[in-house]
């Protein structure tokens, strides 16, 4: 039976020849991931049913990234609770303090995910690893507990929407603009319960960091996963980062799709998603003058070294608007070291930026850059819901690193072309 890449990975992990959309399966997982917010509930559930041991201590990964450095007593207690469990269970991949990075930037960097893997994570942006041609999806804490105990998890096989990106990318347009535009086109539930498969001539040339950005936001269209086919970029990345053996799958030419959507990239200009949904995306040039108070560059969406290189290109030799706070949040310790070694930190500091340690921090309104009522922030993050970054009357505008950097300089939502 012809199948999609997602169906093939699911079938392989369920130990069957093929699966079809709508079917319930219980596949084995290669990685079960939790963070400081979701893991405490998973541990409580684990204990409640009397479980004694995780199924495989090398496949359970805990990343204490949301409130790091711990913002208050409660968050420190949560981390302590998880740390003690991790110690008891001899969890190999437990990340905290100096080792911690934003989970979905950290796991690929550490080589914990390779093509063909099946990853579940108690964090909605677990879909990021689809960039590495893995099937990965966000679940809840009880799901995580079930996977920690049994090494398996129930799933309904999703149907797939194929997105074909054609044409030529305009200047300053990146994966972030493509995905914001795509979510704008189909809506925040446009791919509800479905798999998003990203293909086409534009995708073939898209570098890994931009694929991570796109897969990361599949959930913002309601998607179960977002996935790319493995190619030379994927294999180069996996080989450099991991000793695990990749398993390569590709959709059959006659695989069945619920829908096929073609997107002409030549028509896409740098995007911004206005409050309060990621689907409110527009060309920056169309939104008029929206004055801002803060800019955040970082997160699991856009906190990788390439993102900071681009931002530095815009900010080099410039000063940000005096009203604006510019937060630079490298997603992992490795990215932090890279922006230091490459001299990018000096550029950001000279421009007026504040350098934060790796953390999810303000993205979810945790800490390290919370907004007051009436304040507006341009962020390279993934959500702009009501109150997402602070006060219920604050606003978040989603954009790429270059739009964020240009906006910091101008003091309003702006694109690099406006700096001339």
């Amino acid at each position, binding site marked *: 039976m012809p199948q999609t890449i997602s169906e093939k990975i699911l079938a392989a992990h369920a130990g069957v020849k093929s699966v079809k959309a709508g079917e319930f399966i219980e596949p084995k997982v290669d990685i079960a991931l939790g963070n400081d917010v979701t893991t405490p*509930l998973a541990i409580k559930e684990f204990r409640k049913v009397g479980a004694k041991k995780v199924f495989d201590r090398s496949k359970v990964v805990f990343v204490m990234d949301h409130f790091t450095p711990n913002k208050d007593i409660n968050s420190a207690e949560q981390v302590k609770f998880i740390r003690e469990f991790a110690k008891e269970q001899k969890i190999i991949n437990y990340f905290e303090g100096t080792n911690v990075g934003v989970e979905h930037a950290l796991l690929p960097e550490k080589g914990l995910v390779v093509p063909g893997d099946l990853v579940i994570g108690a964090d*909605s942006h677990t879909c990021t690893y689809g960039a590495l041609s893995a099937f990965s999806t966000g679940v809840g804490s009880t799901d995580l507990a*079930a996977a920690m105990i049994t090494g398996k998890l*129930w799933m309904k096989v999703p149907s797939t929407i194929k997105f074909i990106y054609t044409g030529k990318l305009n200047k300053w347009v990146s994966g972030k603009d493509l995905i914001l535009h795509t979510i704008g086109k189909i809506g925040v539930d446009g791919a509800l319960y479905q798999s998003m498969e990203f293909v086409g001539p534009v995708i073939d040339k898209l570098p890994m960091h931009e694929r991570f950005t796109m897969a990361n936001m599949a959930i913002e269209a309601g998607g179960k996963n977002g996935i790319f086919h493995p190619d030379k970029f994927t294999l180069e990345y996996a080989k450099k980062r991991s000793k695990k053996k990749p398993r390569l799958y590709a959709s059959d030419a006659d695989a069945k799709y619920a829908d096929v959507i073609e997107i002409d990239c030549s028509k896409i200009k740098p995007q911004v998603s206005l409050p309060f949904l990621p689907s409110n995306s527009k060309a920056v040039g169309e939104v008029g003058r929206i004055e801002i108070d803060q800019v955040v560059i970082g997160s699991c969406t856009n906190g990788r070294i390439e993102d900071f290189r681009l931002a530095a290109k815009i900010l080099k030799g410039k000063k940000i608007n005096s009203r604006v706070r510019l937060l630079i949040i490298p997603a992992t310790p490795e990215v932090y070291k890279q922006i230091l070694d490459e001299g990018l930190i000096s550029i950001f500091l000279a421009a007026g930026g504040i350098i934060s340690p790796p953390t999810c921090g303000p993205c979810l309104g945790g800490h390290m850059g919370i907004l007051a009522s009436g304040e507006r922030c341009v962020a390279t993050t993934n959500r702009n819901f009501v109150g997402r970054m602070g006060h219920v009357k604050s606003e978040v505008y989603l954009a790429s690193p270059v739009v964020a950097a240009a906006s910091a300089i101008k003091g309003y939502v702006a694109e690099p072309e406006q700096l001339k």
Partner: protein
Amino acid sequence: MKDNLILKGKAHKYGSNINTDEIIPARYLNTSDPAELAKHCMEDLDQDFMKKAKPGDFIVAETNFGCGSSREHAPISIKVAGISAVIAKSFARIFFRNSINIGLPILESEEAVNAIKAGDELEVNLASGVIKNITRSEVYQAQAFPQFMQDIIKKGGLLEYIKSR
């Protein structure tokens, strides 16, 4: 959850894409204490929700209820706040899973959501999926869950289901 439970209460009605940040803002996620989470249920959507909502009441919403984060704290806060079920046209995927897994009753019915107005008195039979609108003397039918999910619901949640096998 009992099989033949009849739930009774008032409807609190909301729109589309009610997200988990509105249901339980991240500023409260430094704890997983259910009682503490329940205090802030729906806070960023409707500040007075916990004052208005009585035990047994229903949340009724349009499409894509519970979109956003994977935080199980969201359905937990609703359940512990005493809400007997959420009725929506559709649910976001992770919220749907979480609700099934922790035993928060959820029902999908476009017909019911279109007809129910805020404040209507409802009576819901979870086993049959029949939603009675006492105020309007109307009856709606929610979609049946696939057998696999019904089994999880019957056992009272995912881990109990796993344990029973």
